[in-house]
């Protein structure tokens, strides 16, 4: 193979904020038609690197070369004009505008002083075609699936003649099918000679899509693999900088006593139908399935957050079907929700307050709450759960893993009978995950029934005694730990 010239080269890129250097001289080459996976824990410097390339952040020193010429984008716009397309993790589309308008937003094509809608739609159509998407560009973005929205972001970059795409966690919100769809489009782009930087926490998919892997740690490149199908363990060890004995702690065996019994549960909108299962005391019950299978809706209904149309939830043989979170909480059933930032913590309130919010009645004496009592209460849980922060700090200052610990702490203070965790480690770096798993096992050992919903197959397999697989709102089957593997789960999930 002849070595073509790289699209983009980074040489000794450094970035400091004040006296703190966050990038320590990074070298990087991206060649046409390859997917380079950029991996690392949160804070390893991946985002800073992509921000430097996409013009959001200016490096303190070092050189960049773009197609042989010196490159120093002063703004995201400059980088875009040069041919860098950055696809952010959070989609930045305007739902009330058409696809074509979204593609050209801020740089509308003009003709005779008026916006040339026809030209925009034609060019947007061309971009969509390149990705094999058959959606009319005049359609509103609202209502499109997440995967399609992701593809429209890519189409937008392509329409702007991007030669290099940076995809930041593109599959974070995608199910298995949608991920495969995205991967097929990425293959097309590779064939077109587009270079791609692929950032993801999902190591399994890296094996599938990446041609090269670059691992970063603490602002420096620590290892480079010249192929994509590197064993996950090797990557993880390189990311965390130590060898891992095991990713998952031992799963304790549950007792025979049934705590939670769900019978024929159905949602008013049919997002889940006729779900029946039971969870024993001290059992970790996993729920797997693709995006849109109704898992989140199911567990939200069980904990009173969403309405239930039919069916019952029984706790210790008593019908306690909850109509509100308050009722569920009173019965000792608590939810650690999917979206930490929107549903779990109030980001600009302190850690102590966040922990207190679920425990206000317990902290009240004769109607009064004092600062001292609240802080002492919170400090106890901060220590117990090893939250790396102090009570007065805002929750928004914490890393994802520590925020999750705060959410757990606020519930576990109430000694719940059933704890439901929806995507407990999403967006949390590998090192912090194991401490969340440890917490789950501690709960199970103390006799709590734990339900874990996860899109991460390895995670469900690693922590559960039994796994229920959901497909399109129905329960496809319940697997025992010894029978469950990624194949048996995916077979059921794609029923």
């Amino acid at each position, binding site marked *: 193979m002849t070595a073509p010239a790289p699209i983009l080269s980074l040489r000794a890129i450094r970035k400091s904020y004040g006296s703190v250097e966050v990038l320590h001289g990074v070298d990087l080459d991206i060649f046409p038609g390859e997917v380079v996976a950029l991996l690392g824990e949160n804070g390893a410097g991946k985002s800073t690197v992509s921000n430097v390339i996409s013009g959001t952040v200016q490096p303190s020193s070092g050189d960049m070369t773009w197609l042989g010429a010196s490159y120093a984008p002063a703004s995201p716009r400059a980088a875009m004009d040069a041919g860098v397309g950055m696809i952010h993790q959070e989609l930045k589309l305007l739902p009330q505008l058409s696809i074509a308008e979204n593609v050209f937003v801020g740089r509308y094509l003009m003709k005779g002083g008026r916006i040339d809608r026809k030209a925009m739609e034609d060019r947007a159509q061309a971009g969509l075609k390149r990705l094999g998407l058959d959606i009319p560009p005049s359609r509103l973005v609202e209502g499109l699936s997440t995967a399609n929205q992701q593809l429209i972001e890519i189409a937008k970059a392509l329409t702007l003649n991007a030669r290099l795409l940076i995809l930041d966690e593109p599959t974070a919100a995608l199910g298995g099918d949608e991920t495969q769809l995205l991967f097929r489009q990425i293959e097309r782009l590779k064939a077109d000679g587009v270079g791609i930087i692929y950032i993801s926490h999902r190591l399994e998919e890296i094996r599938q899509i990446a041609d090269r892997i670059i691992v970063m740690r603490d602002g420096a490149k620590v290892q480079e693999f010249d192929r994509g199908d590197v064993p996950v363990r090797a990557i993880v060890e390189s990311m965390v900088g130590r060898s891992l004995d095991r990713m998952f702690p031992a799963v304790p065996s549950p007792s025979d006593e049934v705590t939670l019994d769900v019978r024929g549960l159905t949602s008013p909108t049919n997002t889940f139908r006729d779900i029946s299962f039971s969870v024993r005391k001290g059992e970790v019950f996993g729920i797997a399935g693709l995006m849109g299978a109704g898992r989140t809706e199911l567990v939200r209904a069980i904990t009173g957050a969403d309405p239930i149309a039919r069916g019952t939830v029984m706790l210790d043989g008593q019908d306690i079907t909850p109509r509100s979170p308050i009722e569920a909480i009173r019965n000792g059933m608590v939810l650690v929700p999917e979206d930490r930032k929107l549903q779990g913590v109030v980001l*600009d309130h302190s850690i102590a307050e966040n922990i207190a*919010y679920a425990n206000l009645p317990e902290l009240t004496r004769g109607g009064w709450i004092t600062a001292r009592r609240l802080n002492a209460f919170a400090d106890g849980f901060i220590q117990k759960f090893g939250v790396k922060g102090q009570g007065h700090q805002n929750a928004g200052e914490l890393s994802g893993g520590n925020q999750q610990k705060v959410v757990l702490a606020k519930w576990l203070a109430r000694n719940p009978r059933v704890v439901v965790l929806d995507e407990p480690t999403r967006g949390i770096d590998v090192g912090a995950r194991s401490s969340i798993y440890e917490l789950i096992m501690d709960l199970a050992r103390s006799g709590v029934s734990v339900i874990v919903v996860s899109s991460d197959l390895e995670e469900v397999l690693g922590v559960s005694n039994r796994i229920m697989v959901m497909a399109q709102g129905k329960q496809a089957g319940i697997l025992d730990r010894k029978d469950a593997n990624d194949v048996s789960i995916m077979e059921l999930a794609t029923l």
Partner: protein
Amino acid sequence: MQTQSRSGASKGTSPLFGSMKGATGPLIGLILLCAFLTVATDTFFSVRNFLNILDQITVLGIMAVGMTFVILIGGIDLAVGSVMALTMMVLGYLNVELGVAMGIAIPASLAAAALNGLVAGILITRFNVPAFIATLAMMSITRGLANMITNGQQIIGFPAWFNMSAIIRYGGFLTLTVALMLVVFVLGLLYQRYRYGGRALYAIGGNPEVARLAGINVTLMTVMVYVVCSVLAGVSGIVLGARLDSVQPSSGVGYELDAIAAVVIGGTSLSGGTGGIGGTVIGVLIIGVLRNGLNLLSVSPFMQQVVIGAVIVLAVTAETFRKRK
């Protein structure tokens, strides 16, 4: 991991206990303003003038406490000026026209105010009408009702003690109305800092979904907040009636904006979840001192409006700037 070590040094503002912490900026502003007026006029710095200022802010002060609670949960109440007028008219009608004793007329008029808040609260929580629209509608409805009672006429002829409660200074300095305002301030502060409900308000304002999932009865709390805000608007109406010794249905036009201004100057965020009564007290004082000072400096009432507008902008931009740092 870096985020954790970095955050150790910074001190998070504590909206629950530090109701004054967020208000240090406004407090400095208030002190500077007083210092300037002390130098610029001979009459500003005197006990007599300070007592005057306290008298002048009673109506705004009581109303702003209720508004603070509403804004803390991320809401807004545009109806307070109208609710105030309705309360005054109900009181006047019952007491003067029907001869009902004040001991009954006052609670009855406050009940009318509470009903207004209840309707607004139900519209917002049960029918999902945005607070801005629901209270805008209530503002119009309530103003109309206030006018209907006497067909737009004022009512005079309250018992003598009513007016005296705003004039006689007990112990040489406290009128009953000022005392009432101070009691409302203290109760508001205590509630916000040390009561279950007060703390739940911050959770709701910070993120209603987090609050709901945490088992806080968001619907009930929201309705109650609008009821309390309306009742306090009613109380401020009664105070205004006492000060004027008369009630008229055109009272309180535009007061809702003064109350919102006081809350915002005091550092409570319109998006909810941060700020508090402490800041609002300072916001009310800034507006009171400013009006008083501008009068002493013989600034025209029209110019005063310009100055107060400028102060609102100054207060909010200073706060935004401080946050960005």
